């Protein structure tokens, strides 16, 4: 698979194929978590520490070995390459772009039934990894500040407008639909007491009904 072709498709070189440094950093983070948990487990009582140590010590050793291999660049292929060769959807993508990836066929799947070129992947919707994660961070912040109901009412239109440039009719219908379904199911039927956010915005139920 040509890296250039992958980068062109994904629109973000760093996302298409994680660098050796970033892979090593992730492996170091995993080692850090496992090492910390194992080290902490030594302080537990004999019954409580048995299982964490039995698992933690070999897992930490393996994580250290993994880090060593990631630093040397000898651990497997990059995740992006794997996704191109193991994810059937991605396989279609590479097929359609003539990237020449080694495409595994889902067992018993009749590939001729599947039209190969992707037709609904407008480039305007593609984001970098950081962009996608920022949306999740934004959702978390909105939720923390305004609570469930305001988030249900605010997040869909914001996302649809800024991410997809959807028409206002689509935005309105989707937002009202999502709000109505979640409100009816979770609040009216299941009577869940929802979190209302630290901003203390006016009670949406009282405003609307």
């Amino acid at each position: 698979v040509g890296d250039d072709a992958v980068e062109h498709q994904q629109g973000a070189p760093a996302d298409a194929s994680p660098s050796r440094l970033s892979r090593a950093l992730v492996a170091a983070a995993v080692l850090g978590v496992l090492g910390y948990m194992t080290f902490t487990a030594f302080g537990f009582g004999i019954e409580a520490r048995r299982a964490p140590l039995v698992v933690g010590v070999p897992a930490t050793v393996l994580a250290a070995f993994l880090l060593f291999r990631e630093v040397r660049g000898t651990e497997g292929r990059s995740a992006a390459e794997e996704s191109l060769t193991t994810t059937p959807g991605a396989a279609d993508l590479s097929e359609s772009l003539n990237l020449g990836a080694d495409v595994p066929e889902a067992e018993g799947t009749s590939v001729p039934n599947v039209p190969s070129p992707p037709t609904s992947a407008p480039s305007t919707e593609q984001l970098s990894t950081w962009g996608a994660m920022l949306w999740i961070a934004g959702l978390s912040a909105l939720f923390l500040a305004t609570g469930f109901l305001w988030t249900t009412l605010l997040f869909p239109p914001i996302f649809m407008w800024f991410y997809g440039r959807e028409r206002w009719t689509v935005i309105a219908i989707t937002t009202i639909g999502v709000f109505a379904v979640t409100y009816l199911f979770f609040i009216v039927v299941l009577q869940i007491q929802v979190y209302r956010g630290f901003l203390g915005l006016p009670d949406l139920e009282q405003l609307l009904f």
Partner: protein
Amino acid sequence: MFDGMLEGLAQLTPEVFAYMILGIIVSTIIVIIPGLGGLFALAVMLPLAFTLEPVQGIAMLVAVSVVSGTGNTITSVLFGVPGSPGGVASILDGYPMARKGLGARAVAAGIGASVVGGLVGAAFLAVLLPVMRPLVLALGAPEFFVMIMIALIFMAYVGQGSLLRSIVAGGLGLMLSFVGLEQSTATQRFTFDVLYLWNGIQLVPMMIGLFAIAEMIELMKQGGSISQTGAKTSMKGQVGQGLRDVGRHWKTTAQSSATGLWVGIAPGMGDAAAQFIAYTQAARSSKHPEKFGTGIVEGIIASDAATNSKEGGALIPTLAFGIPGSSSMAVLLAAFVAFGIRPGADMLVSNVHIVWMIIWILVFGNLIAGLVCLSFIKPFAKLTTVRASVLVPPILVICLFGSYATTNNIGDVWVALVFGLVGYLMKVYGYSRATLLIGFVLGELLERNYLLSMRLFGLEFLLRPITMGLIALAVFILAWPVIRRTYRSLRRPKGAGSGAPPAETDTSEASQDRP
């Protein structure tokens, strides 16, 4: 026996049947919502059940309980959003198939396997009725400990790409399962004095994060729709093809149904454990284990057949001893008692018609649930062609609600969001999310059964006959590729083996022998 069968069938009057169908429909709708599983559906239906006649109420509750695994398949496969822990393993192969535009086929195969699994569970429940007692007593903590160990050993088969990363992810999952209060001494482990963590990390928000939110991040990043073939996806014939797949892979269906049944008998093992144990076994015994997790229909069949057959198994200790095989069976048991029916040996003598009615409900309930879910496939599958900009917000909002709804704890929402980011990073960097979740699900069970075994038998628990049999079987399975290779090299005539062996034969052997 036949008298009992007919008596049980006679209980299914039109009114009873109507309540059973109501239970099935409500259960199917509830389990589609992320985070709300069969237990939640049971809790919702309990108040209504107690206003009914005992037979009607029991029929409705049993129907709710036994078919909850069927509806799970729809959202797990099509959106990568598991309705409950019992739907996670279906994502591993189902979602990649949906990405390829084969979602309807994958769901149909899953539903078909669920129905067959449910019927197998019912059949075994009927057959095992007279011999339940010795069977249940023969299985204890040591046997389940060894069974879980075997599943963990085979865990690496589930991961794709780097074996080392998969094993490390599994180890991390196991370690995360130890977060919270230790069961026997109440020692706080890895809680950082956070009250929420005293109960450990909750499975439902964790799986919603690892799979649903991570997949939504991926979808945001890529744009387009879930089905990468977009609106041109042809669903024609996919449902029929999916159902035929179940017959074509009858060995996987039978093996996984048996596994689900076996796991169901063990109290407290849970849907997720049944699915993952069946899935790892199917991957291990497959001729092409490397394809598991890439969108292979056998993977969906294996996990879904186990989910519903487990319910038949869970009913065995519930009805025979009054020992619930799962949390939903505990609710069912409480309902039986409230209706004045006391499960246990007496029930098999004085209320045998109720036992047979339950078996019939297993049969009809699974068939009806299968038909209901099949009718949902096409509209749901069409949603996989909807643009990310329209699909992502509703799914994320419902995921947040679903994470929160089970325990009404805000900590669950944060767990879902954090594991969403963790899941996405794992996906990008090639760490298997499935092995992490298998480790997490089985870790707690492993520790509990190990401690129980040690307290009851000491290290001698390894010398119990069934335990030894299981260990021998595991060793044999692990050693089988080496044994076969050695046997074939010994059989090969001298001189023929010095050069490269015939390419075709060797390639196929190598692929089958892959550990």
